[in-house]
């Protein structure tokens, strides 16, 4: 049995459905990333778990206990808010101690646990500061300490790195994961940043239009996207449209070639995903899984260059060219491309 079990959860705001019959399981000690665009329902899901919204249907169980009708203050889980929501009239120490106070924790124990939580995020010296005198990164740490001080089994994080500078994000991300391992709590993190989700989580769940479209370990979801949406959202794969041929491949007129996966295409397949970094340049053209095209544009990205190649059939392909493979072809030149069958991922929808 999972720590958190969500079954048939549905919520609509007026006529707009935010969640449509969602099932989700989170194991104890797991770091789950909820990934999706705006309006995908990921924030609604978080607010339903925290208890700030009531579902229209479905149930939420935590450690076997039904939370569905429980008010937020009674739920044994905590949340870190996107805006951090630090109480502006309370010092850092009192912010962190707020939840313990509500539990009636004795003063001595409270102070010890506040100090411990602040030490955990490296903020022990700033217990007396007021929130408006903290930097963005410090605020984030205080918010984290405040949410962890009650030792919840489940911590909800709403875009925890969203308000930080790019250079602070990576470091904080690593710290977040270290903290999760140390506390042993389950983390559910909402994010719209696919890199963040892939980098931090044990498991990624992609939401679209209030539905869970795919869930799994980051590598699996990245390499084998289930739908056009996931393929496009994670790492911007090429999505190639076509029609199945008699030999179990996918005939792509836009590519001017045929795609072939290791196994026959499932019946009804009309599109496949192909990652830019799986396409190799300078391969001999002929047969399935090869194509030729003209380089229309090129962007240098540091360790690789991104090429926009117009295939013979008219489709624009994104192709990654690694620096170690020498200088990229010039704009306007004709290139030949090839890829392994394992790189071709049939899409379900």
């Amino acid at each position: 049995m999972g720590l958190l079990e969500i079954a048939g959860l549905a919520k609509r705001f007026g006529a707009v459905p935010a969640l449509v019959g969602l099932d989700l399981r989170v194991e104890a000690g797991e770091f789950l990333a909820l990934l999706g665009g705006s309006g995908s329902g990921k924030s609604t899901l978080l607010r339903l778990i925290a208890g700030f919204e009531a579902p229209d249907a479905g149930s939420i169980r935590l450690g076997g206990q039904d939370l569905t009708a429980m008010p937020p203050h009674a739920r044994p889980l905590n949340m870190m808010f996107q805006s951090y929501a630090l109480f502006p009239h309370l010092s850092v120490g009192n912010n962190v101690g707020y939840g313990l106070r509500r539990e009636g924790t004795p003063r001595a124990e409270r102070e010890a646990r506040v100090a411990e939580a602040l030490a955990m995020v490296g903020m022990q010296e700033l217990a007396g500061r007021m929130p408006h005198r903290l930097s963005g990164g410090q605020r984030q740490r205080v918010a984290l300490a405040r949410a962890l001080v009650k030792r919840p089994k489940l911590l909800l994080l709403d875009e925890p790195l969203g308000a930080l500078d790019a250079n602070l994000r990576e470091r904080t991300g690593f710290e977040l994961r270290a903290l999760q391992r140390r506390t042993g709590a389950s983390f559910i993190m909402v994010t719209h940043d696919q890199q963040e989700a892939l980098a931090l989580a044990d498991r990624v769940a992609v939401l679209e239009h209030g539905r869970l479209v795919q869930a799994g370990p980051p590598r699996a979801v990245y390499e084998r996207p289930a739908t056009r949406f996931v393929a496009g959202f994670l790492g911007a794969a090429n999505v190639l449209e076509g029609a199945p041929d008699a030999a179990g491949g996918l005939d792509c007129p836009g590519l001017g070639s045929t795609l072939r996966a290791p196994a026959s295409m499932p019946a009804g397949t009309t599109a496949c995903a192909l990652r830019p970094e799986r396409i190799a340049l300078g391969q001999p053209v002929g047969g399935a899984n090869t194509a030729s095209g003209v380089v229309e544009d090129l962007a240098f990205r540091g360790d690789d260059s991104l090429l926009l190649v117009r295939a013979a059939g008219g489709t624009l392909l994104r192709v990654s060219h690694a620096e170690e493979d020498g200088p990229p072809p010039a704009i306007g030149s004709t290139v030949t491309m090839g890829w392994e069958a394992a790189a071709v991922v049939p899409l379900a929808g």
Partner: protein
Amino acid sequence: MRRLGLCLGLAFLWLPVLLLAGYAFSDSRIPFQWGGFSLRWFQALAANERMLEAAFLSLRVAAGSATLAMLLGGATGWVLARRGPFAGRALFGALAGAPLVLPEVVTGLSLLLTFVMLQGLTGWPAERGATTILLAHATMGAAYVAVVVQARLAGMDGMLEEAARDLGATPATAFRTVTLPLMAPSLVAGWLLAFTLSLDDVVVASFVSGPAGTTLPMLVFSMLRLGLTPEVNALAVAILLLAFLAAGGAMLALWRRTEL
């Protein structure tokens, strides 16, 4: 150019007031004429029975109405800023803001007519005076308090109360430990604004008052109708000083805490 405009404007606003304040300390019998420094007109005020009575009534009404306005306006501002949609919200908002835009004569007349009708129907209020003025001023003051409170709460992260709930606070505890402390500066400012508003009002008080209730502004108004005397001058300056302190306090209360 801009600076010149600003200076001229400020001079226009402040010069008459400063002159009035200065000449209140003149010994001359003729107002706005310097006859040497003297406190004689303030002493004359202190000995004026009618004036003291009116001043006492005004302070009582102002303090009472400001307190009532703070409670009502605080609740109104909270409803407008924090409570989600409810049936009649638009009407509630329109009525809450109405006293701000209604001409004073209309507010005064409408409240008086209501008091008269209520008296005819229920026997209450038995007589018009301190109580009716207090209620009228509280109605006007509450509208100002509501605006200040609403603005303050609107500037605050709406997630704060949710964060408190998440950390184990019941709705009542979240209100007491988070919302109320955040509202506090605006409540203090609102109280002081309502207090000065009450202390400054002639029109509404004249309508809703009865023969027994003459507030200080009503007295000053009836005296000013006959022109300015050194005594009224001194009285005006006393009122000015009180209102000045209250308004300054209100602005400080809001200003000092804006960094939160």
